[in-house]
């Protein structure tokens, strides 16, 4: 078997930091290779070197048996290499047909536009992947999955030999992911090599023939499918063996801290009822689009629910705005810390003090500097945030440290209830387990915690109870003591209640 792409000793550094330390990697002519690695491991640098957007400091790229020291973007395209980035780079205001045909239009350099030709080009590409796309629909109206299909179709309008998909599943539902994986296999059958870059290991395991693992700019292993297991990959990616210990809440007969009854919001979730005790970590999981995030947004007052009851500490309360939620003692750590959780350009101290600013007022309503410093330093200390001083801007911190700052901000407000919505997504394994430790400690101190996550091991190991959401409803509730990760996974992926799965839901309810 000859290789389409072979990388030999690829090195690249940015201002003294070695992003890639001599990568050796080969991709067969119609192979599906998965590239995994944590944030900052060098995945995107490697993609950009193959696409020609970056040039390597040293090393060789062999493509179809020819050696290149570096590639220019246009060269890479002409060699049949296509990259589909996370943002797709589509035109939301143009139709599917035009989006698909555009790169070919640019290539032909015609001054006039032939609409029939555009439709033909697009129809051919859509046919190739048998996508169910309306050529006349405007791309902005499509679902993320269909936008992605459009991007893939566009990549296929010109002779494609090697397709790189960068984190292609991060915003897709389970069904859509299955469809995507099928398309990737079809492309492989047509003789196209595919590199699937992802950090979601179960998808990687579902499709890869080989898995290449990057860590700190080094290719630490290339495994065949048979050798690759979830645990093995996590270990290789993080460099440490992670053993989860389960969290057990102290049993208590106290009345619940939070009670939610029949909470509903049109097109988001329906008839949600559950309770949360002091010191408990309650897990909520479900696929993308199951309503889990919408529920969190409603509890925190960002997108309030239409009807239903929320009771905190025996007090029925109305949560219409974020202010109501904060007043009721609810804190919220979002998934997207960069846009929602942090003010990146402000200092760590200012971020931590943001919620409690009103309590730090002293004489004449001015900020009491001493109280400010004391509060900020206490929480930096408590959460072991690694900064040289509270004056450091939040944007200079690593992902794990940033998320600790967001946690500190909410913990400083001494909440009764803390909601974490996929809060550890995109953080490396060590930092992740650090945050889990903090959450557990806070729970032991009596805070009620709702941990929303799509990573099954995370909820199973940290929570005492898990709610599984599906189609906007709570489909099942399980005690973690009674279940394995695989069983929870099965409950989550069940798309229609039927057969064996149905029995399981019933038994666990």
């Amino acid at each position: 078997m000859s290789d389409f792409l072979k990388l030999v000793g690829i090195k690249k550094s940015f201002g003294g930091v070695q992003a890639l330390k001599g990568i050796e990697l080969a991709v067969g002519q119609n192979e599906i290779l998965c590239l995994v690695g944590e944030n900052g491991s060098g995945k995107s640098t490697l993609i950009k070197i193959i696409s020609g957007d970056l040039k390597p400091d040293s090393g060789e790229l062999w493509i179809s048996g020819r050696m290149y020291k570096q590639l220019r973007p246009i060269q890479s395209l002409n060699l049949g290499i296509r990259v589909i980035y996370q943002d797709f780079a589509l035109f939301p205001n143009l139709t599917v047909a035009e989006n698909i045909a555009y790169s070919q239009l640019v290539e032909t350099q015609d001054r006039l536009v032939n609409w029939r030709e555009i439709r033909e080009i697009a129809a051919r590409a859509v046919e190739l992947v048998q996508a169910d796309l309306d050529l006349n629909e405007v791309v902005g109206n499509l679902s993320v999955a269909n936008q992605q299909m459009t991007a893939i179709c566009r990549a296929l309008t010109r002779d494609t030999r090697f397709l790189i998909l960068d984190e292609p599943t991060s915003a897709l539902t389970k069904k859509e992911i299955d469809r995507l994986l099928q398309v990737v296999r079809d492309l492989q059958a047509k003789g196209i090599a595919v590199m699937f870059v992802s950090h979601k290991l179960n998808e990687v395991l579902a499709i890869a023939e080989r898995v290449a693992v990057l860590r700190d700019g080094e290719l630490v292993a290339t495994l065949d499918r048979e050798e690759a297991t979830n645990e093995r990959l996590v270990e290789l990616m993080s460099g440490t063996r992670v053993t989860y210990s389960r969290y057990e809440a102290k049993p208590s007969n106290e009345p619940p801290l939070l009670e939610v009854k029949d909470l509903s919001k049109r097109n988001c979730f329906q008839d949600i009822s559950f309770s949360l005790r002091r010191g408990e970590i309650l897990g909520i999981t479900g696929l993308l689009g199951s309503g889990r995030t919408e529920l969190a947004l409603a509890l925190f007052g960002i997108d309030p629910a239409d009807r239903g009851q929320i009771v905190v500490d025996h007090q029925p309360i109305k949560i219409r705005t974020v202010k109501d939620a904060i007043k009721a003692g609810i804190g919220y750590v979002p998934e997207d810390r960069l846009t929602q959780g942090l003010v990146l350009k402000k200092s760590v101290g200012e971020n931590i003090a943001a919620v409690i600013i009103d309590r730090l007022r002293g004489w004449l309503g001015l900020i009491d500097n001493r109280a400010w410093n004391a509060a900020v330093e206490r929480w930096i200390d408590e959460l072991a945030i690694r900064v040289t001083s509270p004056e450091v801007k939040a944007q200079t911190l690593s992902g794990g440290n940033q998320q600790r700052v967001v946690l500190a901000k909410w913990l400083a407000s001494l909440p009764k209830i803390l909601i974490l919505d996929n809060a550890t997504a995109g953080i490396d394994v060590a930092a992740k387990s650090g945050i889990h430790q903090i959450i557990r400690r806070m729970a032991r101190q009596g805070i009620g915690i709702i941990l929303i996550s799509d990573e099954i091991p995370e909820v199973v190991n940290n929570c005492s109870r898990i709610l599984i959401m599906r189609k906007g409803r709570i489909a099942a509730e399980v005690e973690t003591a009674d279940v394995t990760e695989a069983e929870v996974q099965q409950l989550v992926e069940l798309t229609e209640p039927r057969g064996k799965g149905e029995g399981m839901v019933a038994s666990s309810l």
Partner: protein
Amino acid sequence: MRKLLKQTEFYLALVILLLSILITMYNPRFLSAENIFDLLKSFSVMGIMAVGVLFVLILGGTPDVSFTAIAQVAEYVVVIMTLRWGGNILLAFLTASLIGGVLGRLNGCLVNMFRVPTIIITIATSNIFFGLLYVFSQGQVIYVIHPLFRRFSEIRIGNLVSQHGVYFGLSLMPLIWLVVLILGWFVLNYTRMGRDIYAIGGSELAAERVGIPVRRTKLFVFTFVGVLAGIAAVVHAAIVQSAIPNSLVGQELDVIAAVFLGGASVFGGAGTILGTFLGILLLAVVNNGLTLLGVSSYWYNIFVGAVIVISITISAVQRIRQKKTRVKVQVDSEGWRV
């Protein structure tokens, strides 16, 4: 049919129709050929400039506000040149387009160079162009212009007699407007340049990735706006038969309002020639209607302001809706009750 109901153009046409019926009921003179010809003639200056504004708004959201200043400069210079050296109407159009094109291109260069919103650059250049015109003209009004403009404006197609025994016909001005509309429509829909403009308006980043010459396209658009301002300048001179240094400046907001009304979006990437035409037409009908109904023309300004607010609201709401539909929760909605 469902597609038709989604289009701004359909609603605009409907509103124009309803207004026309309403106005005619109060004053039947509105629907006379004489009034309509007159209306088309007096709004052709704005109509021509609106096509340029449409191009800029598709490209990137914030409008060019310097086109009236450009037209003003072109008008004044051409009027003076023809007075001094004579010439013919074709030469007047060419010179005015050239002046407009050069000034517009300057806008384009600045936008490319500083990468700041169009509106900021063009507020600056508008002041510079207008200021220079005042410095050199001393604000002098030229009441007597070369007779070639009068000859041009008197060309009529058709010879009709009004109720009051006055001869009238369709002036050439609306026809020039029509030619500009057709040209704009062709460029936007059937040339790479036109599609590139829409594409850049949709996503500049994606445009760069796919290999569209973004800077060159922008330069073209701003030059085109200038050329249209030049053409509008000659039409204006022919209609008003004088050159007043501040007769056009101030109208840019009306034109921009009309283009927004026609479906252009503050976020760029949207808008059509038909919509723009209907937008101008609606302004014309409202303006004329207020006069015919004897309502104070100050109401017209309020109308223009309201139009901008409403159009911007509509495009903002559409954008929010588009964002919200991304990941949809498919709720099992059996037994849904409110």
